[in-house]
């Protein structure tokens, strides 16, 4: 990892960490009324408190990885944070896939019903998912360095 990459990674994951932390706080607050929505983002479900804890940890992991980002133990924190987002967002996507296949009255869903299962609103973790994928670049870079 060269200096530019390290610098970019530091700034990028600092911002991502701050956003994740903010979402985590929002989810934690949303556990009081049980649900909250903001545009096409929605926070709800019985696991909301747990997801809030996970998201807060993700935020802390990213932020604490920023200092000396190129060092492998620091990078590992960012990787772990990304994996945690992948788990939660992956489950959210999986829930939609599982719910989209069977129909309400028929065995299988209609095309409209199927696609409607994927319509917004989405949970905060799903918004973080694409941005967390940047870590893959750094994982591959790290792999090359070891070789």
């Amino acid at each position, binding site marked *: 990892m060269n200096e530019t990459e390290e610098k970019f990674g530091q700034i990028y994951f600092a911002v991502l960490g701050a956003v994740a932390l903010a979402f985590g706080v929002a989810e934690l607050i949303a556990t009081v009324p049980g649900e909250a929505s903001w545009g096409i983002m929605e926070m709800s479900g019985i696991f909301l408190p747990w997801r809030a804890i996970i998201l807060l940890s993700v935020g802390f992991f990213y932020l604490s990885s920023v200092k000396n980002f190129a060092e492998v133990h620091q990078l590992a924190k960012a990787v772990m944070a990304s994996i945690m987002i992948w788990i939660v967002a992956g489950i959210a996507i999986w829930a939609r896939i599982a719910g989209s296949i069977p129909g309400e009255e028929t065995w299988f869903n209609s095309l*409209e019903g199927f*696609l*409607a*299962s*994927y*319509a*917004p609103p*989405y949970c905060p973790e799903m918004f973080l998912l694409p941005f967390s994928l940047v870590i893959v670049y750094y994982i591959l870079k790290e792999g090359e360095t070891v070789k």
Partner: protein
Amino acid sequence: MRNEKSKVQSGKSPLKAVAIVALVLMALSTAVISVDAHMPGAEAPPEFELEPIVIDDGGTEVEITIEDVGNYHGQMCVCTCCAFRATQLGLSEIWGAEIASGEDVDASTSATTLFPTREDIRIISRLPTPGSRDCFQYVTGTGPGLETNTKGEYKIILPDGTEVVNMSNKNLKKVSKSNTPDNFRFDVCRISTGECFEVVVKEGVFPDDYFELRKKVKFGIPENATDEEKALFKSEWEETRDTFLTSPDWELFEGVEEPKEPFPVGGAIFFSILVIGLGLLLGLSLRGKAR
């Protein structure tokens, strides 16, 4: 002068007394016979959400809920519920567009109202039952004991074309003996423009044996109902009432299209991204393995 006045007064009071007695008698008869039209021991209806009918009564906005109509009739029976839903549909079909766009609904009055005016409403019903009568009279302001600023029109014309002028409970009960699903048709009209919308209850809303059972249970035709038949009719009656309270218009009435859900664009976009993402992931992992 004084004498004259007292004379006039004394001349008025017997009239008033007669009117009161007549009203009381009418109310009593309604009460007695309408008990007959009701379903004793019927279970309470389930939870439902029905918007009120909103009309303009000579400049005053009046909200009519199904509970108002039920109280006026004495019970939320199958016929009141059906008549209420039919009125709601008919009014929205004729006035709906204007209500939605906020235009002046009634050009004949100067009031800038957004709702159908009561005096512009005409309802022609094929259904000779006290429940539907009370509902339509309540809406048009033509029933006894109603204090309204204006009045619309309400008539009962049977499917064979005969008009039922005597709308007393006794007569309606007599006429309604041979009711069939064909009686559940109502014309809701706008007097000022002559527009009419015919509300027709869909086949299948009433269970197949509903009218036969009704004849047996209520009128003993062709023979008195057994206890089992009575119990069956009671449950069918409740079920039908609940259908009218809870089902959407397109399930109840002919000519109403099932509202189509808009094409889920957001869902389609997300699904495409998902498929592309998964494809990329698969491709990358296969390439990684090949290396």
